[in-house]
């Protein structure tokens, strides 16, 4: 098996999904926790138009920072997101083909589909599916969406979210993220180590709680104001900002178990308003 670099893996996946009729789009330019937040998934899952897209989405999970100390955890990482709407009967086989296209030997290794009913409470999105294990390494989240923004979907989309770093770990047989080869001798650590350390420090120790508490309020207000004017995309971008502000507050330890559901409900309400605007169009 040729040991693909990170860059080559992205390249192969783009080629693969492009050949399956996906538009290859670019990431959303705001901090998000996952590829699902991209309008290409959030909005496009709604309504009755067919849609196929794939893209890399840099994702931020402030709570997951480990000061570059942990071989498996990052507060900033990359998802490769595929959305196929409506889903197709042989989607699982196509997915397995994509792994083969990356040179993964599915006879020598075990792929296991382990129950995981995915849910994004902030987006009011949920679905049934699995986390996909490759020899117990979770490499993909595979979900048949049932709801987005609390709205029952008529055309069921299939969302496939690859953890790019995880796949590279397997392919390159390096179980430390920072040792992964990005391309031609340059490592993931070369590119991201300092970023991880500084952002871990920022998220856990430095982020100004008072400021974020205020920002959350501002973002929420602005999202409502824009939604009132039917400016769906700008409103949605403030939903994303509010969601990220909440994540930072969470990492900073400023949100208690009791407070959490309330924040999440506030973001969800905003996301729902945007979804309703999308459907109305």
């Amino acid at each position, binding site marked *: 098996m040729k040991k693909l670099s990170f860059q080559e893996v992205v390249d192969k996946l783009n080629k693969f999904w492009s050949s399956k009729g996906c538009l290859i789009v670019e990431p959303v330019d705001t901090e998000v926790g996952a590829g699902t937040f991209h309008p290409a998934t959030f909005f496009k899952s709604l309504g009755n138009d067919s849609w196929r897209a794939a893209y890399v989405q840099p994702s931020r999970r402030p709570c997951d920072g480990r000061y570059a100390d942990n071989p498996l955890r990052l507060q900033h990482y990359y998802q490769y997101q595929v959305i196929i709407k409506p889903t197709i*009967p042989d989607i699982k086989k196509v997915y397995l083909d994509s792994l083969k296209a990356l040179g993964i030997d599915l006879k020598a290794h075990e792929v296991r589909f382990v129950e995981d009913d995915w849910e994004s409470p902030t987006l009011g999105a949920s679905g049934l599916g699995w986390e996909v294990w490759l020899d117990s390494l979770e490499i993909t989240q595979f979900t048949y969406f049932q709801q987005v923004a609390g709205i029952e979907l008529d055309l069921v989309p299939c969302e496939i979210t690859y953890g790019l770093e995880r796949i590279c770990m397997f392919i390159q047989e390096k179980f430390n993220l920072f040792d992964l080869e990005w391309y031609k001798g340059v490592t993931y650590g070369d590119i991201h180590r300092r970023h991880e350390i500084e952002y871990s420090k920022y998220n856990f120790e430095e982020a100004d*709680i008072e400021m974020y508490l205020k920002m959350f309020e501002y973002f929420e207000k602005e999202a409502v104001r824009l939604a009132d004017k039917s400016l769906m995309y700008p409103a949605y971008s403030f939903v994303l900002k509010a969601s990220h502000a909440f994540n930072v507050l969470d990492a900073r330890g400023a949100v208690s178990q009791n407070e959490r559901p309330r924040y999440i409900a506030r973001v969800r309400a905003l996301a729902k308003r945007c979804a309703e605007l999308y459907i109305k169009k």
Partner: protein
Amino acid sequence: MAIKKEKSDFLLEINVEELPAGYVRPALDRLKAAFIERLKAERIAHGDIIVYGTAVSLICYIKEMLLRQEELSQEISGPPKRIAFDENNNLTPQGMGFAKNQGVRAEELKMKQTPKGEYLFVVKKTASRPSREVLRSAIPDIIKSIAFPKTMKWDDSGMRFARPIQSVAALLGRENIKFEMGNVSMKIVKGADPAAYLGKIEKTYILDQDKRKKEIEKMILAAQKKAGMDEGVDKNLLEETNFMVKSPVLMMGEFDKKFLDVPKDVLAASMSKHQRLFTLSRDGGLVNRFIAIIDGKGRDLKKMRKIYADILEARLKDSLFFYKEDTRLPFAELTPKLKDLIFQKDLGNMFEKIQRLEELSSFISEKLGINADRKEDIKKAARLCKTDLVTQMVGEFPSLQGAMGMEYSLRSGEKSSVAAAIKEHYLPKGTDDDLPETIEGAVVAISDRIDNITGFLGSGIEPKGSFDPFGIRRNSQGMIQIIKSRSFRLELRGLIKKAIELYKGRLRISGDELEKKITGYIKERLEFLAPDTRPLELKRAVLEAGCDDIVAVFKKVDVLSDISGEKYFLKAAKVCERTSNILKGARGENIGAVNEGLLKEEQEKEVWKAYSADSGTIKELIKQEKYKEATRVYGESFFGPLHEFFDNVLVNAEDAALRGNRLAMMQAVNRLYTNGIADLAMLPQIVVQ
């Protein structure tokens, strides 16, 4: 004519995308039961039914199924012969009507001798259909009848199942049975009957789930024995694993010893819950090895073993990192970090919360007369009970809250009773959960709950219908359960007042109003927790007298419902009812004390005499919680005199002074019982025979 009954084996195979492991067995049970039911209703006889399942297939194998339904012949009797036929032996209109209704020609009518005479009757035969045809509509019904905790749709047909169905094969003998069900495609089996088809599958994996499970268990035990480890298999994980693999292969691996420093709870959770690994132990202690059951032969075990170990180590490294970080300082020194944790919007941070819990716990200790040493321990436990929320381990494994607090506080040298209380103050988590075992835990648990209820209700949060996201009902209920089981004699009003006071004006809803709200929820839960066998009106009557002493509430409900059929009880109830009715008319008036000099009529003097003679006794009996005796004395003492009084004396006299005095006496008599035990006027239809 004797028809040779032909039969064949039948097989249904549902191919589905990976079902959650826990879904498979219940689905198989349902599949089997549904076939038995339906085939019986369809009059299709059959032999044994066997079900086989994996995550991706549900199979029902039915031996020797008849190829046609049994014929159904029913006898339906009609009118008696004398009505159905005239004297010329011709059918009467009634006789013809019967034939017509049954859809038969006159020639098909028959006669039958019964004990009541000769009657007309018909034999109705329902044509038998080929089983193939019956199955065509029965199979989709049966598949759709399989219930799952969660279902999904995957296309526009509206079909729901736990995961998408890929295809279905149905074989009767060698014949493929085709049917329509959503957009599901039919799998065609060529050149095999069910037995041959199953034989072919059997060559690729272990078909029978029980055989497979035994096989896995055997493998694990053998490996443990060979390695000199304790022998034993985690039953839940075994059951789950059995429905994740078809051809089990055992792989034993090893991880770095240093991870054995991770607390046992955390290590076991990481291994069995996250990675589905069987842990290994020697002489009861975990060792740095694992067993994985993987699927399929011919895998690259060498590489897989390394991957499994690397991933486990990466996970444990995270846990070890948390553990080291968390234990860098003595546990108690982490407590001030609670200042950064919001308890609840408007209610301040968690540090302020534990300060309140310290005060509340001391307040309760005081009330319960707990000795000074123990009181200090309780206060310590209250101070430390939320500290683990700022630890990284609990951030990662929220379900370990409390357990980590115990672990860390023990490590920092806290007393074991303090450590236990930290863990136990979260109990009970639900109606049937355990209660705290230590008195320290019980006191802190009560403090935490009353503080939650007060804070949430005070900031305007209330349950809506069954939606109670802040657990106000759960908190109230848990508190009552603890107080009751420990027979804690707390003055609840005092505790509530203290809890409100400790929020220092931070609450939106103020003193009396809030106190009433809190008491309302506690009463609602008391009503719910008192046994169902006790009448609701009686529970309410008792609660009307207050719930200051929760232990007494339960006792009163028990005692009163036991004596509710006694005459003296009914008399007491009647006294409450009549005095209460008269007082209703004076609602809002300022009623003073009884002035003996104003008692004019003989009958009112008698009532007062009874009061002067027995009220002291009754109060004393109530104080001693002798509710039965108190009720007896009350009923017997006042029922007679009061009866006479109402018959002869007008309470609402024109003279305002007389009226006021009589009302005062009524109030005194009424309150003697209704404030002390229960407002029996709330009971329906009180009749004293």
